[in-house]
Each structure stands twice: as structure tokens, then as C-alpha cells.
């Protein structure tokens, strides 16, 4: 904002404040006099935690975490600031206006990784590296993860949970019907295509997919598979050329995979696509490991009713995304926020939260026995595999870059652009963010 702009804002705000004072309808029940000091002030001993975990397993996870928090910090009262809707988009809008006007919550949820860039650039969140020392998190989290969270030697958030993006889910019955061996593994995408062809021949959907973000999710795993983990990571720091023939080949693979998908994809969200595998309408689905909850919800057993494996060509790589908590600049109750962050990083907190939510702890010292069968395999991979950052879930790029990539992907998959212009739009999108 220009200074002039700020001044106009100020005048308008002052006028608005005066108006509110004049009109009776502006009165509130929060004890706030409607002045310009900006928002609710937390009394000491309260911590407002801003999340988009308002329903489902996410809410269960939050509840479990709060329980741990209450036993560890009985003197601090948890205040739920959850705002749901559209994977946090509504929450982010509201959060941004609060941060902008210096009325931050005590701590807020954000995807760990590059998505924090905007908050960092806007000087809205604090460096919490010293809390990593204080809570002894540096040793507890895997080194790969720490390096992915570090920006200019500083770390700005504490992850609460980890999800794996590069997973394939499949219905063994559909595979058998297509004459395929359900236990077969596919080392590359090229090995996978004949299997998809075989399913195609039976008239079922080979690969189910949903709306644009799931297509970006597929794109990211294809890039990872075709380019390998190093070149994939290079896409986000500028060391891999988006215009290279290797990327062209990867996008051709993506185009080919999209040709195996259901036509009503744009009208669906991920549970619908996963449901097609559960119902036996589709053979495969590429989705993050939260999909396991959908199978369990439907009463399905791993191995017999559904199978899972890393996206072909990505075995040994853990494409991660994480939720994390931050310390906003000017948090009303910074000590309360630190208490919350302590709980989030603690073994007890991570175990309770992830058991309920279905994700895995960021800590490597959690006892796998506390977790479900799938989670146990994920815990092993997370400890052993190379870790890369997810594009579709905010770990790899700032929001603006992801939005531009999403737009280009939707344009391509809906037939609005050809492969060459898709590639150049992706290159432009990635270039704009760095």
C-alpha cells in the first residue's frame, strides 16, 4: 500500500468508527467499545488457536490435541478459532484480514513449507528456530524435513502431522477381472500403462480422478515419477528447466494418464473419485494417504478389499505435506502460543492428534504400535525414504505459483490449451513465484 493509500484507509476507518459510535446497531457483546484499537484482546491465560479443522476426522484430531494440551498446560485456556470451508480457503481469507490489521490469533494453522513464504515476506510470523532447541525438536524430526522447513536458516512453524501424497489405491477385484495380478508392482509409468489398458478393455474406469486440485496432485506425482526426486525438487528452486524435453516427456505421460480417467471428473471431489475404487467402478486412484480413511469408513480391509502402493516410479520417495502451527508477529498471548506449540511438537500431542486424524507424526520417535496398519508403513517410509515437498498442498511453492499452475492445469485438461502451451504456462507460473 502506498502511504497515500494507507492514509485514505485510515480516514475511511476513522469515519466508519465514528459512524459505528453514532449508530446503535454497531454495539457488540464482546466488551469492545468499537474503537480503532482493533479487535478482541485475549485476557492472559487464553490462547486462540486458528485452524480450518472444523469437521470430520480433522476435528477429532484437534479435540484429541486439545485434551493433551489441557493436561500439559492447565493454566492456559484453549479458545477454538476454527473456520471451515473449502480446505481452508475461507479461513485463509479471514486470517489474512486479521493479520493485516494487526489483530492476529495467538497461533494459526498453515501448510508447512513454501506456502508460508507469503507470511514470511509480509513479516507476519516469527522465527521459531529457538523453540526447536527449547523443545528438542531438532533431533526428533527427520533431517530431510527440517531442511525442507528451513528458509534462510530460520524455521517458521512446527509441524503437527505428515501426510504422504504419492500413493495409489486400487481395487483388487477389478484388477483380477481385467486379467491382472493384484500383487503386481509397477516400477515405472511405462509399466503401468498396459495395466490401465487392460482395465480400459473391461469397460471400467482405469484411473479415477476428481476436480482440478486432484489433477494437480496427479501431475505432481507424474513429474516426480518421470523426473526423479532431485529433478522434481529442482522444479521449485529453479535448478530444473521447465522447458526441457524431460519435462515435455513427463507432461506427455500426464496427458496419457488423463486419457484413462472418468469424464465427469471436474464435477467431483476426491472422496467421489476414491469411492469409485471402493465401489468397483474404477481400478486405480492416485490420492494422498488420507484416502485410507475412506476405505476404512466403507468397512474395507487392506489387502483383501483394497491395495495401495506408491505411485509407479516413486517408490523410495516420500512426497510429503504437513500441517503446522505458527507464532504470529504481535500474538496477544505469545506465551500461551508457545505452550500450544510445545504441545503440538510433543510426542504425546503428536501421537494423540495423528491417531485421531489418520496422518502420521512428524517425530521419528513415535511408537508405530500405536497406529493403524497403513500408518505403520507410512511411518517406516517417512523414516527411510527421500523426502520431497508436495506441490498441490502448499509445501513446494507459494500460493500464487500454485494458483497459476492450477489454472494452467485446468485449462489443459479441459481442452483449452495444447501440450506446448501448457508447458510454457507452467514454466511461466513457476518462474513468477521464485
Amino acid at each position, binding site marked *: *500500500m*502506498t*502511504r*497515500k*493509500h*494507507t492514509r*485514505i*484507509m485510515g480516514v*475511511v476507518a476513522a*469515519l*466508519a468508527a465514528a*459512524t459505528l459510535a*453514532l*449508530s446503535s446497531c454497531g454495539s457488540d457483546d464482546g466488551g469492545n467499545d468499537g474503537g480503532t484499537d482493533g479487535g478482541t484482546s485475549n485476557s492472559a491465560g487464553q490462547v486462540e488457536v486458528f485452524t480450518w479443522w472444523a469437521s470430520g476426522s480433522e476435528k477429532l484430531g484437534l479435540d484429541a490435541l486439545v485434551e493433551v494440551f489441557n493436561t500439559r498446560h492447565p493454566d492456559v485456556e484453549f479458545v477454538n478459532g476454527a473456520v471451515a470451508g473449502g480446505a481452508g*480457503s475461507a479461513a*485463509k*481469507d479471514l486470517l*489474512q484480514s486479521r*493479520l*493485516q490489521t494487526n489483530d492476529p490469533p495467538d497461533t494459526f494453522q498453515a501448510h508447512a513449507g513454501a506456502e508460508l*513464504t*507469503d*507470511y514470511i*515476506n*509480509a*513479516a*507476519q510470523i516469527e522465527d521459531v528456530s529457538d523453540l526447536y532447541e527449547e523443545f528438542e525438536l531438532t533431533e526428533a524430526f527427520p533431517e530431510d524435513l527440517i531442511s525442507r522447513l528451513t528458509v534462510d536458516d530460520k524455521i517458521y512453524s512446527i509441524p503437527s502431522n505428515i501426510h504422504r501424497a504419492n500413493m495409489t489405491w486400487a481395487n483388487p477385484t477389478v484388477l483380477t477381472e481385467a486379467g491382472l495380478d493384484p500383487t503386481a508392482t509397477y516400477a515405472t509409468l511405462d509399466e503401468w500403462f498396459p495395466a490401465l489398458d487392460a482395465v480400459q478393455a473391461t*469397460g471400467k474406469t482405469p484411473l479415477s480422478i476428481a*476436480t*482440478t*486440485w486432484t489433477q494437480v496432485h496427479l501431475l505432481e506425482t507424474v513429474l516426480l515419477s518421470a523426473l526423479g526426486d532431485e529433478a522434481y525438487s529442482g522444479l521449485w528452486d529453479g535448478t530444473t528447466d521447465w522447458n526441457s524435453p524431460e519435462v515435455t516427456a513427463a507432461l506427455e505421460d500426464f496427458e496419457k494418464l488423463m486419457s484413462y480417467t*472418468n*469424464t*465427469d471428473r*471436474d*464435477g467431483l471431489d476426491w472422496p467421489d473419485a476414491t469411492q469409485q475404487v471402493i465401489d468397483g*467402478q474404477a481400478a486405480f486412484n492416485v490420492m494422498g494417504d488420507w484416502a485410507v480413511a475412506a476405505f476404512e469408513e466403507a468397512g474395507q480391509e487392506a489387502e483383501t478389499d483394497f491395495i495401495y502402493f506408491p505411485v509407479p516410479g516413486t517408490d523410495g520417495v516420500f512426497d510429503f505435506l504437513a500441517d503446522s502451527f505458527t507464532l504470529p508477529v504481535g500474538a496477544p498471548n505469545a506465551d500461551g502460543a508457545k505452550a500450544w506449540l510445545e504441545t503440538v511438537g510433543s510426542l504425546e500431542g503428536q501421537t494423540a492428534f495423528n491417531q485421531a486424524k489418520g496422518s502420521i507424526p512428524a517425530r521419528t520417535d513415535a511408537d508405530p504400535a500405536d497406529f493403524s496398519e497403513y500408518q505403520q508403513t507410512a511411518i517406516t517410509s517417512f523414516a527411510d525414504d527421500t523426502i520431497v515437498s508436495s506441490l498441490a498442498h502448499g509445501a513446494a511453492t*507459494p*500460493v*500464487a505459483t500454485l*494458483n*497459476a499452475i*492450477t*489454472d494452467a492445469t*485446468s*485449462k489443459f485438461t*479441459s*481442452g*483449452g490449451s495444447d501440450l506446448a502451451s501448457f508447458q510454457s504456462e507452467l514454466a511461466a507460473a513457476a518462474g513468477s513465484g521464485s
Partner: protein
Amino acid sequence: MFRKFRHWGPPLLLISPTLIVLGIFVYGLIAVNINTSLTDANDAARSVGSEPSTFVGLDNYAELLGSQDFQHSLRNLVLYTVVFLVGTMAFGFLWAWLLDRPVRFEGFYRSIYLFPMAVSFIASGVVWRWLLNSNQGESALGLNRLFQMVGLGFLQNNWWNNINVGIAAIAIPAIWQLSGYVMALFLAGFRGIPDELREAGRMDGASEWKLYRFVIFPQLGPVALAAVIIIGHMSLKAFDLIMSISKPANYQTKVPAVDMYILKSSFDYASAAAVGTILLVIVGVLVVPYLIHNHREGRS
């Protein structure tokens, strides 16, 4: 002087709260918004004011209007508006015309046609998403399935998934919601025509068609104009619908309001503000002549 004040002072005082709040919350905010759109607040730091932004003139507008994607959005908006206008006017007029003549249970039909107005798109979007499913043939769902069931299979199509005209399908729920309203308008218009006029027409031996052509339609002119203005400007607000039926990221159904939403989430406040201003200009072009026309009428 004092007498003059006694004459116009009290009414002005009475209306001043409204003038002040509207001055701030409509005109003031529009000014702030335009101001933002002329700066380079295109990234997080400058959008939120932690770094100073500078005046860049119409750069943001030039970039938007020059981009192929934004042109696609504008084209979609025009197409949507046309379909929405034609649809609501056609259904609204037809229903009003059917109900104008004496009908048993008129109130029943009227209520049914009018009720979709009471339902928010957040509520009806849940079901429209199912109905406008693009699957056809064997795996058809939603309306496509219904068409098969009632023997109208040839009507199946992929609805809003068509890259060129898909946006027209998004107008269907909007037509569903607002045709009843246009009906109420036309019905009021029909009923407002004095009986003597019709009788006079009949006495002169005019056929039913001529009666409509020369007596009734001209009388409906003002109502039709109002309906066009209102429906037309509402089409700029297709946002709720697209949010609840397709998804903001879908290229097929992009309109400027959706672009703005995405730009805002990218922390590109300057371009987002520019989209807002472009929408305002479009509305202005449509509405201001109408308001001036109204203003003149009001005076005469």
C-alpha cells in the same frame, strides 16, 4: 435563513445516517479499491502493506485485459448473461401469461414457481452438482440419467464441462431460481393493465394476438425493462453458483468474479481490485443510463 433550515434541515438530518454510511461503505470503499488497483500491490508483502507499494497507473488493467485467460472469463460472463437473461425472461413471461387468465389453484402454481427464490445457492448447489453431472450413456447420472429414463436420451450433454459453452449450463440453476421472480413481475404488469383497455380492444374486434401485440405488450414495456436491468446486473454475481456447483479452479466456468477470488488468494490485491473495478464499470455501463432515465422520470 433559519426558516429555510427549518424547511430542509429536518429531512436532511433524518436521512444523514444513511448518507454517511453509504458514502463510506459504497463510495468511499470504491475509491479505496480503485486506489489499490492502481498500485503494484501484486504480492503478499505489498498487498498487506508491510512493504510500500507504488503507483503504476493502469498497468494491472492492461495486463488483465491483454491476457487470454481473462478474455475467456469475460466471454464466459457475456454468454452466461445472455442465456440467463433469455431464460428467465422467457420462462417468467410464459408462466405469467399462463397464469394471467383465470386458473384454478393459481396460488399453488404461483407459489411453486416462486419458491426457488427462497433457497440459497449454498443449499441448492448441493443437489445441482449431482444434476449437472457430465457422464453420459451407460454411466449417466443426474439429469442425463433422467433424460434416458423419460425417453429424451438425445438431450444428454456434458453440461458445464464443455469448454466453449459450458458456462451456459451454470445459468440453468440461476434460471431455475429467478424465473419465478420475473413471473411475479410480469404478472403484476399484466394485472396492472386496466380492463377497459382490453375491453376496448375486444370491442374493436381485435384478435387475441392483436390485442397482445398492440395493447398489452406495450403496457408491459416498463416492467420488462426493469426486469432486464435487474437480471442483467445480477448475472455479474454468478460467483456463489460457480463456487457451489463447479469449482473456482475449473477453466470451463471461469468468470471475472472467480478470477478475482483466486487473485486475492494469491495475495495479488492490486489485480484483484482491478477486476472488481472492471466489474463495477460493466455494471455502471448497464445501470447508470437506467438510473439517469429514472431520475429524469422522477422529476417530470
